[in-house]
């Protein structure tokens, strides 16, 4: 499994990575009845501090706080990738608060005419990687500010 790292020295803040990430998720949700009305949010977020632009992304920590804090054990580690099991997630938001990198965000979906919250995080494009394709944010980055580990 490949992981990503980002070098802010090469980031121009174009948000190509954000767009790539959301478009992948949108295409997955579009064909999945259970998730069709789910809000799409990127799992890599370009932030700015003074003149520096920084793509914030999940580090897939070895001893991940989000995994340790999750009260429903919805977060697990598979082949070193920290993933959320949507069916087990109750949308409590504790993982969002626990993440030291601020890259878990809460999204919304409608179920039984009720609006529900669900946690949202990077899965390292496991589906793509299983087909020998690279993570989409890496592919989309025009300046190679994102590289693979």
């Amino acid at each position, binding site marked *: 499994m490949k992981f990503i790292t980002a070098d802010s020295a*090469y*980031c*121009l*803040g*174009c*948000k190509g990575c954000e767009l790539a990430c959301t478009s992948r998720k949108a295409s997955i949700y579009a064909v999945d009845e259970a998730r069709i009305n789910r809000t799409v949010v990127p799992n890599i977020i*370009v*932030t*700015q501090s003074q003149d520096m*632009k920084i793509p914030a992304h999940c580090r897939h920590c070895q001893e991940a706080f989000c995994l340790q804090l999750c009260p429903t054990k919805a977060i697990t580690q598979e082949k070193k990738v920290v993933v959320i099991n949507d069916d087990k997630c109750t949308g409590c938001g504790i993982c969002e608060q626990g993440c030291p990198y601020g890259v878990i965000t809460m999204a919304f979906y409608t179920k039984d005419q009720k609006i529900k919250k669900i946690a949202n995080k990077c899965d390292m494009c496991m589906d793509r990687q299983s087909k020998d394709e690279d993570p989409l944010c890496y592919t989309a*980055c*025009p*300046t*190679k500010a994102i590289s693979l580990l």
Partner: protein
Amino acid sequence: MGNCHNLSNQCLINKAEDENIDLVWHRYEKMLPLCGFGEKGICCRICMKGPCRIDPFGNGPQEGICGANADTIVARNLVRMIAAGTAAHSSHGKEIAKTLMQVGKKTSKSYAIKDSEKLRAIAKKMNISIEGKDIYQIAEQVAYESLKDYSRIEEEPCTWLSNSITPPRLEKLEGLGVALNNIESSVADIMSRTHLGTDADPINLLLAGMRCAIGDYTGMQISTNLSDVLFGTPEPVISEANLGVIKKDAVNIAVHGHNPLLSEIIVDVVDEMQQEARAAGATAGINIVGVCCTGNEVLLRRGIPMASNYLSQELTILTGALEAMVVDVQCIMPSLAKIASCYHTKLFTTMPEAKIPGADHFELHDENAVENARKIVKQSIEAYKRRDPNKILIPEEKSQIIAGFSTESITNLLSKIDSEKPLRPLIDNIVNGNIRGVVLFAGCNNVKITQDYNFVHMAKKLLENNILILATGCGAGAFAKNSLMNSEATNKYAGESLKAVLTMLGKEAGLDAPLPPIFHMGSCVDNSRAVDLAVNLANELNIDLYQLPVVASAPEVMSEKAIAIGTWAAGLGMPVHIGLMPPVGGSPLVAEVLTSGLKDIVDGYFIVEKDPLEAASKIIHVIEEKRAALNVTSTLEEEK
């Protein structure tokens, strides 16, 4: 970083937050991070194969899909900005020239000639014979000859270019092929050559950009001079500036934009409707206030107080005491409509080419200008009745200003000292070093810089070093709001020798106090006034413009018009300081040409410096270099 240097405005920004209204600063925060490809000018959207982006770090693509590299893309994008700026300024001038034509043909219902003396002087300058002609015939011919600068087929340079710069400068521009013959074709030329698959040579593109920018200058000369004919040449006036000019017990109408064709009519009809406003409960009657360059136009000619420059335009509505904002063209934030809808404020658009969703449109063309202006004022009085007293918050601060320094009024003033050679006292004081040099501040505000901060801090340092300052556009607005355009500012900030000169001039002008240390010359098209003054000085000394200890500065530059102005100022030989990097960072070649290579070709060049104090130091150094080259006292020699 704060939002505004002038702290009195902050209470309205807080008010906007309380009322959940987004202002320019909030929208900027939401837009971050800005895309670096656009910032560096290496995003090309000229055809539909792309958009293409060049990787400035060398890892990704180095060419667009068509093969254009960063240099070509940056140069194309830059000259397109110049073309847009030129189009904006020169179409403003064209409207004025067309109006003068109607006045000359006696078909105008709303306009007249206010300064026939200037009209005659212009005719003389344009080599138009006035013998046996009445003022209308002269007006018609001046307008016709001016409009030719927009449509000439012959290859000779534009009249308003060749008659307004020094002979050696004209020769230089002609030698480079940038002394254009036709303003509009110079804009069309840029659009044509930047189309996919045409000009790919960055230097050739930049030269075309220079020619187009010289067209911007030509259009400005037309705008300023013909506006003076129609509306009067500014003379020094005393007025006030900042949001405190909005009155609680008046029907407040702001005029905003650039073209005086509209605002002059509004100011005219207000007098006859004062009674109506008082009857509606506004005990102070109708109060017109200016915003942006329309504000500068009516300030200089009518003494109308100035409420705000570009960046804080939205705050005029946030006071809750503005009945109407009447806008014409350029620099009008579309957000005004939405913000006005949160209040009783009416937003009126007046030009066919500038409509805004949510605004009421009353076209002010010659036919019905007065009638529609009355309707606008009437609706403003109606709006006053709907004002919510609980939503009123007017910052009290306002500062006194002396404005109205046209080239003519400066010359008239100086002629009281030496009637034969009026410029002599100014030249003598520059030569003997009482005035080290002159800096022309122009250009916009930019949300990336605390509003007016750079202007104010640079000016204080330059004044302290005995440098006289001229100002136009939103630069002038910044100084007006921040108490830098009155006699007190001279006493407070000017160096000893500059203070002595301004005190002497103030006495000659019949004031008990010194002249202000910064001369307000008008709106952004009135940069031509500063050039006229510089050209007169250069001609008197028999030197070219670039030799004068004169520098231009736009420390909070933002618009395409400012890029055009900066480019022609460099083309006329002036060093031009800008406080932000324009979108050229993606091409080291283009950046190098603008900041250094340009100097070898046209003597002028760009200095990019963000820090205002550092920028002032650099400008002082340039001025002292120019003084040394002229063999007059220079601190550089002293250092040696």
